[in-house]
């Protein structure tokens, strides 16, 4: 069964059409790049998959479940912005995740917090932008989910942290789970991906195995992206 299946998906914001009849299937066991320029619909697609937005048409199923409590129990979402209350400390944020998500592993979160040099007792409001991003990623990846939706996970972090984050994603790899990463920092992530989706104006213009694409075109995914989306 597909980990994620979108059928005939439609979404508008007022008179602006984002998706019309979008179809997408993702199998388990892949790390997939969701690539597209600003405004192509990456964040909207992710928000639809985690139930933060409702489609106007069509249907999304995650692990065979319609969007709802059962799908949310197996979907781990990393928002683009800080979504935790700023008064919380890292430890309280872990309590919060442990309360909400049965599949949250406190021990793996604690281990990552220490290896990245974060302080469990620091409150989120006093953290730097990069530290906040690290904390959110740690919480997201410490769930044993079937589908990880990472919206721009490496946007605001330094190169060493970026490597740690990518390693965390590799280490967390599980043949049953799919990781969908939206980003425009393609050259930073392309070695970690095994599939890519190119999104343009709400349409999937390409979905392919990454190495097959390199073989076919003799170019990096970053270069292919630049060609496809030349302004």
């Amino acid at each position, binding site marked *: 069964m597909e980990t994620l299946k979108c059928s005939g998906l439609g979404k508008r914001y007022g008179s602006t059409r984002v998706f019309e009849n979008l179809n997408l299937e993702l199998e388990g066991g892949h790390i997939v790049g969701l690539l597209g320029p600003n405004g192509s619909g990456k964040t909207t697609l992710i928000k639809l998959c985690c139930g933060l937005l409702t489609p106007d048409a069509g249907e999304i199923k995650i692990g065979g479940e319609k969007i709802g409590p059962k799908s949310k129990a197996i979907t781990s979402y990393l928002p683009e912005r800080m979504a935790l209350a700023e008064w919380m400390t890292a430890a309280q944020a872990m309590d919060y995740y442990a309360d909400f998500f049965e599949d949250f592993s406190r021990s793996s979160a604690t281990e990552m917090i220490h290896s990245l040099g974060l302080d469990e007792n620091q409150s989120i409001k006093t953290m730097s932008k990069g530290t906040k991003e690290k904390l959110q990623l740690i919480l997201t990846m410490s769930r044993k989910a079937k589908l990880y939706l990472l919206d721009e996970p490496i946007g605001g972090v330094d190169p060493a942290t970026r490597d740690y984050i990518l390693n965390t994603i590799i280490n967390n790899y599980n043949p049953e789970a799919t990781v969908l990463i939206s980003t425009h920092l393609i050259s930073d992530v392309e*070695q970690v991906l095994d599939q890519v989706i190119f999104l343009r104006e709400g349409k999937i213009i390409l979905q392919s195995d990454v190495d097959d694409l390199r073989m076919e075109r003799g170019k990096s995914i970053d270069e292919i992206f630049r060609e496809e989306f030349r302004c």
Partner: protein
Amino acid sequence: MEWNFRNDLPIYTQLMEQLSRAIVSGELLPGAKLPSVRDMAMDAGVNPNTVQRALADLEREGLVFSQRTSGRYVTDDEALIGERKEAMAEEIARQFVDSISSLGLDKEEIIKVIERVRGK
């Protein structure tokens, strides 16, 4: 291991090339146990499916083999490793000869250059 990847070529062929090189050079000894797919993926910073694909292809070529329960190993067939070493050396030499011949050097001159650079 030290890994180096170019993004304009498939990663799995580069993994195969670098692993083959480690095997023929003796950095990975005949019969040596290879790290797990996950550990190799972490070490190289690449997708585990890509590592899996590279190892499966090396297995088809006979350079590595897997034992159902205990993991993957470098072949202990030293004749096969020797053949592969020769093939890789010839490929490198062919590229070198093509490249240096385009400067207009003949065989004697090419050999002289090699001797100068390598030391006799």
